[in-house]
């Protein structure tokens, strides 16, 4: 078991890769009552085209299948796994993102028992045509729930504008139509390909004894048989640099228009240290130009173009990335013009000082230290970083070493207007029925 002490943060991280390929991380936190355990596979909604384990032909599976699989993992021949967790006072949950599916629980007692339940239910699939059919009604309600959420539609609308081919443009849960095509056979095919321990990370954080826990996990994994680890072949279409659609509107029952100004990133085929530095540089650049202390923000706030819903950020995974600046606004046209102008001005003339940079990095360091109070944040983010060959605990030193040149270079990549898009949700015209 490897032990790494992060002096500045006063945290010790334990790590071991087991013979079956599973990476196990344990982070004890003093003073905490609960333990939070996540078991995550590097498999999300974007993994729709791949060669199934043991086969030689590429398949394309129905949209929404990773999320469907997540739901179905909880049902077993003997019943619902939630029941078992409840008996031991554990709250269990799961989520599917573009790139990950995570299963998790938190509890203050019976940590080993609950860990065993988690490992077992994720490593023992049970799908039948009947249970698959039954789930379709539940997921259809989940999809319609999101359909009624304007902010979710806004976010996805902006991504759909940006991407022509890449599956990040497909809604994580799929559509009512696409999930109706899913069969038990599909689920087994995806499960067998992506749920091998070598494609997964187990992260334990909280009130935990690292030695006891590691021994427990090792014994459990040694008692189960897995095939030898194999490289997973996934396919992603070539994606152009320019956005697919420059501008689009959707009508919904909202009080006032909502807009996102999106900028598609072209530096996305990176990982490890390069990704860590680029991502931080981009986030700092966006904060400098569009954060709440920026001249831009003061201007649009004073003009009444933004309200408390305003946000500006950059996010990426290997293969895609985007900056988004958005708000509910009474004048989407003027707001997006101002954003566009601000990008062009700053890309040609960078006016920020080293003091400005210091201030933003201090803010981000403070944010990071606050986030480390949350064991959920640690487990989920650590896993995300590790799937991209980065270490979450490198964030503070990377921020401290970030140079103005890196930040400026990152911002300049936003200059290409062909990579800009605007998506707006507008209220219905009120003269129809009233």
């Amino acid at each position, binding site marked *: 078991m490897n032990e790494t002490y992060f002096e500045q*943060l*006063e945290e010790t991280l334990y790590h071991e890769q087991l013979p079956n390929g599973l990476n196990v991380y344990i982070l004890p*936190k*003093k*003073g*905490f*009552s*609960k333990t939070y355990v996540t078991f995550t596979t590097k498999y999300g909604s974007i993994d729709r085209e791949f060669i199934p384990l043991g086969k030689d032909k590429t398949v394309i599976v129905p949209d929404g299948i990773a999320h469907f699989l997540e739901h179905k993992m909880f049902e077993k021949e003997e019943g*619902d796994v*939630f029941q078992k967790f*409840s*008996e031991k*006072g554990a*709250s269990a949950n799961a989520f599917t993102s573009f790139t990950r599916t995570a299963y998790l629980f*938190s509890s*203050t*007692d019976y940590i080993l028992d609950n860990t065993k339940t988690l490992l077992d239910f994720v490593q023992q699939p049970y799908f039948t045509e009947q249970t698959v059919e*039954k*789930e379709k*009604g*539940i*997921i*259809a*309600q989940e999809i*319609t729930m999101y*359909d*009624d*959420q*304007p902010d979710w539609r806004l976010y996805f609308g902006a991504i759909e504008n940006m991407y022509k081919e890449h599956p990040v443009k497909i809604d994580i849960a799929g559509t009512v139509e696409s999930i109706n095509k899913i069969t038990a056979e599909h689920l087994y095919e995806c499960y067998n390909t992506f749920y091998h321990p070598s494609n997964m990370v187990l992260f334990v954080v909280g009130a935990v004894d690292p030695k006891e826990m590691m021994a427990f996990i090792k014994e459990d994994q040694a008692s189960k048989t897995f095939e030898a680890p194999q490289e997973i072949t996934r396919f992603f279409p070539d994606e152009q640099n320019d956005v697919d659609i420059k501008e689009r509107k959707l009508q*919904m*029952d*909202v*009080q*006032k228009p909502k807009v996102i100004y999106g900028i598609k990133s072209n530096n996305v085929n990176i990982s490890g240290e390069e990704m860590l530095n680029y991502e931080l540089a981009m986030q700092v650049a966006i904060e400098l130009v569009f954060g*709440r*202390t920026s*001249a831009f*923000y*003061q201007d649009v*706030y*004073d003009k*009444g173009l933004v*309200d*408390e*819903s305003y946000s500006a950020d950059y996010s990426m995974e290997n293969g895609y990335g985007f900056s988004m600046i958005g708000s*509910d606004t009474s004048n989407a046209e003027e707001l997006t013009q101002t954003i566009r102008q601000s990008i062009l001005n700053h890309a040609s003339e960078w006016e920020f000082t080293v003091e400005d940079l210091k*201030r*933003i990095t*201090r*803010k*981000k*360091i*403070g944010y990071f*230290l*606050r986030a*480390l*109070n*949350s*064991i959920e944040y640690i487990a989920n983010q650590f896993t995300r970083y590790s799937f991209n060959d980065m270490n979450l605990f490198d964030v503070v030193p990377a921020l401290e070493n970030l140079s103005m040149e890196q930040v400026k270079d990152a911002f300049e990549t936003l200059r290409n207007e062909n990579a800009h898009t605007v998506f707006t949700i507008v209220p*219905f015209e009120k003269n129809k029925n009233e």
Partner: protein
Amino acid sequence: MFQQFELAHGVKLYVRPTEQFKTINISFKWKQQLTLEQAAIRSVLANVLQYNNAEYPTNAAFRKRLDDLYGAVLYFDTAKKGNHHIFSLNAETVNDAYLSNEKVVEEVFSLLHTVIFKPNMVDGKFVDSIVKREKEQVIERIQSMYDDKTRYAQQRLLENILPNHAASITANGTVAAVQGVTNEQLVDMHETLLKKDELSIYVVGDVNMQEIKDKMEKYFQFTARTAELKKEVEAPTTTNDKDFLHEIQDMKQGKLHMAYRTPITFFSKEFPIMQLTNGILGGFSHSKIFINVREKESMAYYASSSYSSLYGLIFVLAGIDSNLQEKAVKLIDEQLKAMQAGDITDLEINQTKSMLKNQLKEALDSSRAQIEIYDQYKEIDESFTVENWVSRWSSVTKEQIQQMASTIEKEFVYFLSGKDGADNE
């Protein structure tokens, strides 16, 4: 769980020294009786004080100062709890121990002093243009509720069952009430906070008790206040002649919101039993409503109940196909009837006890939750601890739960859906 000191009559300091967190959390809570007009004034005041102050005349200057202090968080907020409106000022700062040679904590206390005692005033008034714009911001926040169908449906339910009652007044007030707020009212309200409202101050983190007391004396000299707050909410006297309302909007899903009444409230001695009763009915993913509405019938993605104990109300929420409202109501009614008839298993009771216990213990892992839970439970027990509360559940029997279930009566069904559902009526 907190050590407490009376700083002046009506002003209490609660401190919890712990090494658990890398930050220090501070919270000021000013409480008064909840009324619509006062709620509107207080929510605008929160925004105005947040925007700037005498030392940092622009919002950007103020925020830059916070960024410099390692992104210290400092914000005003409003909330309601039962009969009370709570105007709060919250701060979270990185503990100096994690920074090399910095004195951030002292600076944050100084800044808290500034935002409370040195607002940006000209000739004894706030700046009119700021007041005007912040009123707009609060109005837009209230209006944005319309875009969130779950929040909107819940508010419509409350307005229908308890109009003009604490249960349906929101912490922000209404659009009309906010429009009516004047500069003078804001100035008066600021005075009320400084001199009249009951005040509780919370500090959680790796702190030294004496140092915190010294800082309190150095930065905040709050004077004694005499306002006596009534804790219990008056039971509503009005009864509804209607018990169902279906409203239509342009949307896909059906939002079912049901309200039940019970005489058992947070202040009743049976409160812990009612917590268990609600837990078995619909509080968790092993509960009757979740199992029957979601798992057995595949009718919903979410289906749960919650106990609003200060008002003696239980709500059941489910997102369903807009054509299935009647079927869902029937199914939910059956779950409560089953409990009233004694159909409660030992497994359900044990699962619910474990989950409630876990929920409360887990809350101790967030400093904000420590403050919120204690702030509520101290109303019935100043020496509240999680362990003591957990022990109140352990001996509860099936018969007691059945008896609690029989006090629950259905009050109102509110359904919000798209046009499909309407065609079937």
